[in-house]
């Protein structure tokens, strides 16, 4: 009986009959239709990860070409124009199209599994944010491939980005593409927030969620409020370029620094948004290999949030050289120094976890633990730039380039690769090869440090960033050559990872449901998990439901095998925000073309704007609006309205 408005969920255990019932409800159709319509968070998550890794490879190749140009003084492999588009596209790719989406991918895949739920809060929105991410990546790369890539660095300062100095379509592609990407990020952020607050398994109160949830939740809460700043900045730039407005034009009362404020109000929290979830991966993964719970769960969770709150107040440290008054400088300098403290909490928690545990050395462990050191290196170089007088010397030299790469590769890529080794068995049912894994890790680690550790010195010797070439006699030749060699070693390391993935997909050692003997709920289901994730909804009593009773503690135990069946429809449980008491049965939407259509409509709007084809933009806008109204049309099967009368 599906008509009831209230129900008492049946309690039971898993059975073959129950499984087939759930399977019918949750399984995505095979073939193209299923591919285009699926709203399964696991499929969407993997798409995010695969797309992001492809873009990582592309951005990496761009970097290698640049490193060839910089291998020695006065080389002319690239013209300045080519170099400028390459370094800008490299930054755009790594920061916007790889670093954040790859984390969204892991979180998308893992969240419902970690939370003991059957899908994200808004599965169709989830599909929509992936499609729009894909569309914006295609849009931005369409510009690059037609010779209109961004050419003003990833932070794209005006007036150089404005029409007077930059008349090509380069910056229009970049501006519109970034606004489009912003839609994807915002939709994803809303989804993550509601998922974390409302769909946790019963009993999983907010102080029992894995740290990855804290990291991604914090990142996305920030995204929700800071992404509009950058979308607005890019939109105003596009208006200035194409419609003669004067937001950034000092000749008509505009403010070039408005761009920098809007960009960095977004940009600094964004840097935390692309590392906090990765730090969460380490906080959850490292303890598994140390055979004990994470040291200081509560302080680590709190420090995650504290980092972001402080992170809102440090954007001006990117603008120390813009001639701001001294008082403002002191405030932002102080805040930037203080923000070291919450980061230090995580470092000491991880170190203590290693020391007070019994580490088992695996490739994943190597990635997670080496990340601690890289995090510290990236952290202390950041701490140096927080001191205003020092920053006036350091900023815009290769020291800062080294810093940002320690942050992004050290705190994003290393945890992600560790996470890949850790969760690959869950996603595919097979281990990544450990032997190849060691080769992969050590090549990556050595290559990375060879490339970027000497780069600090290159910066201290005064090499400015974003130069397409440099003269000899500046003292930078040897260091640059070392960096170039290192970058190729790093690239080989990444290549070994890809080889490992392809090999292991076919011939990896089969992994069971919980190959690492890990504590959290994603390891309670088979590898790979069934479309419905959990046959019965678990009830959670602690932070490590699968380790209960083995840590010498007494008390209540989670119920993983027995719980609500919820097989009368495509259903999962909704719980209260803090205590996770069950308070409603959620009716989940089935697979649908609507997200894809809406994404196509929205993307065509941006194509129309780029081409200044108002007809195309108007028609696409109408299509998107109609798709949206139909999407939101209240449906009885989702219990959004009363049964039709008559």
């Amino acid at each position, binding site marked *: 009986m599906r008509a009831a408005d209230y129900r008492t969920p049946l309690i039971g255990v898993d059975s073959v009959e129950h499984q087939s019932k759930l399977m019918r409800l949750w399984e995505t159709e095979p073939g193209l239709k299923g591919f285009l319509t699926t709203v399964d968070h696991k499929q969407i998550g993997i798409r995010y990860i695969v797309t992001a890794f492809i873009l990582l490879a592309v951005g990496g190749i761009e970097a290698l070409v640049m490193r060839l140009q910089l291998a020695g003084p006065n080389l002319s492999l690239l013209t300045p124009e080519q170099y400028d588009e390459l370094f800008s596209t490299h930054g755009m790719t790594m920061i916007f199209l790889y670093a954040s989406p790859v984390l969204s991918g892991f979180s998308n895949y893992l969240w419902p599994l970690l939370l003991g739920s059957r899908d994200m809060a808004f599965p169709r929105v989830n599909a929509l944010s992936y499609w729009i991410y894909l569309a914006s990546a295609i849009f931005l790369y369409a510009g690059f491939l037609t010779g209109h890539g961004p050419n003003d660095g990833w932070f794209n300062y005006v007036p150089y980005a404005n029409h007077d100095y930059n008349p090509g379509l380069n910056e229009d592609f970049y501006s519109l593409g970034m606004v489009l990407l912003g839609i994807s990020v915002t939709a994803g952020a809303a989804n993550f927030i509601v998922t974390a607050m409302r769909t946790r398994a019963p009993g999983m109160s907010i102080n029992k969620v894995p740290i990855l949830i804290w990291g991604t939740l914090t990142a996305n809460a920030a995204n929700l409020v800071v992404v509009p700043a950058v979308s607005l900045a890019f939109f105003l730039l596009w208006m*200035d370029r194409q419609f003669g*407005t004067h937001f950034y034009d000092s000749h008509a009362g*505009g403010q070039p620094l408005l761009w920098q*404020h809007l960009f960095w109000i977004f940009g600094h929290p964004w840097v935390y948004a692309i590392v906090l979830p990765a730090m969460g991966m380490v906080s959850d993964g490292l303890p598994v290999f140390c055979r004990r719970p994470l040291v200081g769960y509560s302080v680590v969770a709190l420090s995650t949030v504290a980092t972001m709150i402080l992170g809102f107040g440090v954007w001006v440290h990117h603008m120390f050289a813009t001639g701001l008054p001294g008082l403002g400088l002191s405030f932002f300098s102080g805040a930037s120094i203080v923000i070291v403290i919450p980061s230090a909490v995580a470092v000491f928690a991880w170190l203590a976890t290693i020391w007070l545990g019994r580490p088992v050395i695996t490739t994943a462990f190597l990635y997670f633990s080496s990340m601690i050191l890289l995090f510290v290196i990236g952290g202390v170089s950041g701490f140096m730039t927080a001191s205003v007088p020092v920053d006036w010397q350091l900023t815009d030299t290769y020291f800062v380039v080294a810093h940002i790469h320690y942050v992004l590769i050290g705190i994003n890529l290393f945890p992600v690769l560790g996470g890949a080794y850790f969760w690959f068995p869950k996603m595919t049912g097979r281990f990544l090869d450990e032997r190849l894994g060691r080769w992969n890790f050590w090549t990556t680690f050595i290559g990375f440090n060879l490339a970027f550790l000497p780069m600090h010195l290159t910066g201290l010797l005064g090499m400015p960033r974003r130069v397409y070439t440099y003269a000899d006699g500046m003292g930078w030749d040897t260091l640059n050559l070392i960096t170039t060699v290192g970058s190729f070693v790093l690239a080989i390391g990444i290549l070994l990872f890809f080889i490992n993935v392809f090999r292991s997909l076919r011939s990896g050692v089969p992994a069971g449901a919980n190959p690492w003997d890990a504590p959290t709920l994603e390891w309670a289901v088979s590898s790979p998990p069934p479309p419905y994730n959990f046959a019965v909804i678990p009830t959670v009593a602690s932070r490590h439901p699968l380790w209960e*009773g083995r840590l010498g503690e007494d008390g209540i135990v989670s119920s993983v095998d027995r719980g609500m069946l919820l097989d009368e429809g495509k259903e999962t449980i909704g719980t209260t925000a803090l205590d996770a008491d069950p308070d409603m049965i959620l009716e989940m939407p089935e697979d649908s073309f609507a997200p894809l259509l809406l994404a196509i409509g929205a993307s065509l709007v941006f194509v129309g704007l780029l081409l200044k084809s108002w007809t195309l933009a108007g028609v696409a806008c109408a299509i998107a609006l109609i798709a949206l109204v139909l999407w939101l049309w209240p449906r009885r099967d989702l219990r*959004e309205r009363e049964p039709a009368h008559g």
Partner: protein
Amino acid sequence: MAEVVLSQPADIPVGPVGRHGLGYWGVGALVATEASLFAYLLFSYFYTGATAPAGWLLEPHPVLKLALPNTILLLLSSGAAWFGENGVLTRRRARALLGFGAAFVMGTAFAIVQTYEWHAKPFQIGASSYSSLYFVTTGFHMAHVVVGIIVLAALFVWTALDYFSPRRRLSVSAGVLYWHFVDVVWLFVFATYYISPYLGFGR
């Protein structure tokens, strides 16, 4: 022996009840991000104005003749939307239709008056940073008004189709929340562009 905890809720709602459902949280998130967008727009206004040379305002005393009544009209439409929601809550369909219909009409009237206001301005969008900010900020708001009008129209149609009851009405509460947001944001835009010059900002 440890005790196994098992959640066995009894008689819980299936799907959203009242405003209690994920969709309402979703619209809440949407409102948060849109509110941020307007905060940045207004920041841009105040930042640019504060750093610009004297005489930045093209209209030192913005004409309130249309803008003030229009603001009141928009606030009244919020009241009408609330009235409509109340109609759904109390199972009075006529009241609901009246409320949503009136809100729709007032919202549309606001948009028309605002369009006229744009044409009546003595400057165009490209005149200066001030005019650019004015037109783009009010333009962003106008886009939200248009979306809000479509939402109100949808609520009207859905109410006419008798979709809602006090229990199943998440779309109503979410849509009306959005419309309230559009109206409240206008108060900030109005205070910034029409009132703050009288307090001396930007002259």
